[in-house]
């Protein structure tokens, strides 16, 4: 919206196209996330209903949980991209819409943090997992942009 409304901004059409592409990806990822989490829930319930340890069942559950972490991982990364795009917009869009771009970065940072949290939960407590590190880096990148754009001096 910020890019579409900033008619004097040369890069606006290209930024708008990127925003549309990211939006399409987010919708597809949200659907994938829902399906993966449904499958993980079924596996979790099977595990809870089963008696005693079962290597095959536990392995299947772990695979489902890892699959359930994959979409949030991508979503966390998309959040960082949205924040970066918002930063590009704040720097060049029409002044009237700077607050909207800044708000978009804050929302993206929130989404990225929520997604990173889901990655952490679904992968269990394995701080060394590179996927978790990737999600946390995305969260941090989005948060830093949102904080910078939210500073009152801007």
């Amino acid at each position, binding site marked *: 919206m910020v890019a579409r409304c900033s008619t004097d901004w040369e890069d606006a059409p290209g930024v708008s*196209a*990127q925003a549309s*592409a990211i939006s399409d990806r987010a919708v597809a990822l949200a659907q994938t996330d829902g399906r993966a989490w449904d499958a993980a829930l079924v596996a979790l319930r099977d595990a809870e209903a089963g008696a005693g340890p079962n290597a095959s069942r536990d392995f299947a559950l772990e695979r489902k949980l890892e699959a359930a972490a994959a979409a949030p991982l991508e979503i966390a990364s998309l959040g960082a*991209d949205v924040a970066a795009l918002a930063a590009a917009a704040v720097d060049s869009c029409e002044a009237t819409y700077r607050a909207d771009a800044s708000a978009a970065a804050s929302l993206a940072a929130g989404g990225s943090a929520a997604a990173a949290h889901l990655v952490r939960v679904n992968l269990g407590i394995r701080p060394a997992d590179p996927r978790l590190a990737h999600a946390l880096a995305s969260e941090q990148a989005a948060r830093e942009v949102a904080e910078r754009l939210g500073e009152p001096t801007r």
Partner: protein
Amino acid sequence: MSTYSALPDGDLVRACRAGDADAWNELVERFSRYVYAIAVRGFRLSEEDAEDVFQDVFTRIYLRLDTLRDDSAVRPWIAQLTRRRCLDALSSKGREMSADEDTLMAEESADLTDVEEAFAVREALGGLSDNCQDILDRFFAQDQSYRTIAAELEIPSGTIASRIARCLARLKEQLEGRNQGSERSRG
């Protein structure tokens, strides 16, 4: 890359007419995916039927190239040949086209438009710098994040969005130039 790959369509057609075997190879290479995409995506033919259409279309191109009046209009001519052969293939299969005929035709038309646009964009991309082609491919086709693009191309992450925007502006110019060119060749 063959010496013919940079030839405009019209020059390539003239070389084919002169009996140049390498030019024929380039013509097949240049349009094979286009023909196949129309058959599979536009008309949803099976792979087997699409293969039959493909063979038949290129046989007809070979036999009838002399009948093409405007050499630069070879692409729409091939598209028309392919559509006709696809419709023949559907008819011979007795595909039901009664109650839903309008819907089906509308869907096929929309899919064909997508195919045409995709090939137009692909051609226009070829007119951009390697850097622009690469960054657009990474973002729009491979769905890479800005961070991944920045890391792999070793450029600052904060500049990726503007670089992509500028490359898109150049792509738009290429597409507009191409459309103006095709309008001139038709007029």
